């Protein structure tokens, strides 16, 4: 397992150019400017990567994803989104870069509870894109069909079950056609059948789904149980004691001697248990 104290971002068998890069970044815990969840993080995410980041609950996974999505500013270090240092970007350029990244929150996906399922998916399209009503409607329909949410389209988001809420969050994150999709503990709520659907759908996205015009999406999944992703992820890392540690590829998962890695591959954390 590689420590990331070196200022050169860690690469693990990626295929494309860098989309997100962290150089010696300290991650703010909960967005607060006085406490670090992770320190000295060096990480390069390239186009087409399928990262799975494991860590115990409270290890800073959510803070890491929020920073990658541009929600939290790094306490120190450099965050590059699509080749540009975010500290040097104007507000408009920063927004434009962030719109290329989708984020699915954990625990029900933080939906807008007053809106219907369709309205949740529609909102970013209506807010940002200069689409006509017809084009917006068609796009929403395509996303709901692909995520198998059409029967619940008119239901209020606050009144559907947790597993479907998580799917709606995925559908909403896909609305703007992101190039990078960050998922925070996506299997924290769903049961076995739902988990299978998630794995299959994410595999389709990684391979190039028609929703994204066949363009393969870059995936980063944070979770506290690596097992569902062991045969699907391409690159793996763990968070331990405020450090981001690269594991390597699939083959490196089982041959490492890191106790945390064995724990994350062996443990079965409770369904719906919040991560960190």
């Amino acid at each position, binding site marked *: 397992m590689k420590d990331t104290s070196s200022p050169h971002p860690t690469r693990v068998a990626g295929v494309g150019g860098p989309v997100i890069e962290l150089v010696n970044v300290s991650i703010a815990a909960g967005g607060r400017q006085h406490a670090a969840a992770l320190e000295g993080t060096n990480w390069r995410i390239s186009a087409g990567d399928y990262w799975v980041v494991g860590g115990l609950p409270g290890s800073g996974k959510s803070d890491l994803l*929020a920073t990658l*999505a541009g*929600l939290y500013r790094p306490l120190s270090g450099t965050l590059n989104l699509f080749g540009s240092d975010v500290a040097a970007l104007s507000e408009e350029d920063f*927004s434009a870069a*962030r*719109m290329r990244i989708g*984020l699915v*929150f954990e625990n029900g*996906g*933080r*939906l*807008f*509870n007053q809106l219907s399922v369709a309205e949740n998916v529609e*909102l*970013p399209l*209506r*807010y*940002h894109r200069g689409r006509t009503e017809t084009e917006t409607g068609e796009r929403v329909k395509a996303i709901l069909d692909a995520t198998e949410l059409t029967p619940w389209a008119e239901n209020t988001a606050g009144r559907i079950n947790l597993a479907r809420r998580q799917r709606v969050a995925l559908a*909403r*994150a896909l609305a*703007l056609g992101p190039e990078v999709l960050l998922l925070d503990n996506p299997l924290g709520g769903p049961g076995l059948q739902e988990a299978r659907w998630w794995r299959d759908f994410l595999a389709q996205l990684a391979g190039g789904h028609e929703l994204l015009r066949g363009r393969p999406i870059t995936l980063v999944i944070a979770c506290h149980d690596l097992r569902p992703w062991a045969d699907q992820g391409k690159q793996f890392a763990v968070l331990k004691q405020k450090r981001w540690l690269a594991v390597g590829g699939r083959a490196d998962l089982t041959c490492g001697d890191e106790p945390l890695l064995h724990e994350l591959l062996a443990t079965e954390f409770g369904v719906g248990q919040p991560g960190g």
Partner: protein
Amino acid sequence: MKTGGVTTHIPGSETHPVSPSKGLRRLDAIGRSIIHFVQTVEGLVAFALITFGVAFTKFNASPRVFHPLVRAQIYRAGLRLLPMTSFLACALGLVIIGQMVALLTRVGAQNFAGTVMVTVVVRELGPLAAALLVLTRAGAAYVIELGTARAMGEVEALEALCIDPIHYLVLPRVIGLALAIFSLTVYFILVTLVSGYLFAFVQDVPLLPADYFKQLAVALTWEDFALLAFKTCGFGVVIAVVTCYQGLAQPLHIEEVSGATTRAVVQSVVACVLLDVLFIVIYLVM
């Protein structure tokens, strides 16, 4: 020793710490209250400035989302309150204005009825009553809604979708409340003046409707219309900013939402009264 935030250290008293005196504790409490008050005012002013900044920079952004949101707030804080406003305006008209017209007539001062009506109803009672009505029905609900949305992480979800929470959540409420309070005030004034006269008419007050409304027309000046518009819109902005600030500005846990609602209502009332005093001064100067 640390008691109530005051640290007292007396040389040689390490083993027998002495409590601060009652006077010191009171001073400490007063100091804390002042600091808290200054911080609240500072936060409210900063939040208001941010809101105005977003209003100028993003006023025309995303009209397909923004305009329906403003219309929804006008409907919610304005149209839906029409029955309640009608009831309150009738009640005040009958109880206060009708009696006042009757009293003025009894002392032979019926010629001043219009002036008194304009001063009492148009300048003071109407705007304040409409503002308080909207505060209790819509403003308090804003704190609960926004506080819950913040506690449930919906604000971060908006940010993740690159939707400015101030533009999406606060600005429609500010505009909606300003227009709603202005409209409700106009409606409230009309209903109060008419119902007040009706009550006086039933009491056989010798004041013809034509004379009554002529007096009103004479007493009203263009400044009244202009200041009425500014004042009511000001009330709307103040209430929206205070309630949205209490709901959004700091991360709340669900159990803290009720406390924030109470604070918002009290602060809104105080801010509206202060704004009212400012307009009274303007009236007096003019």
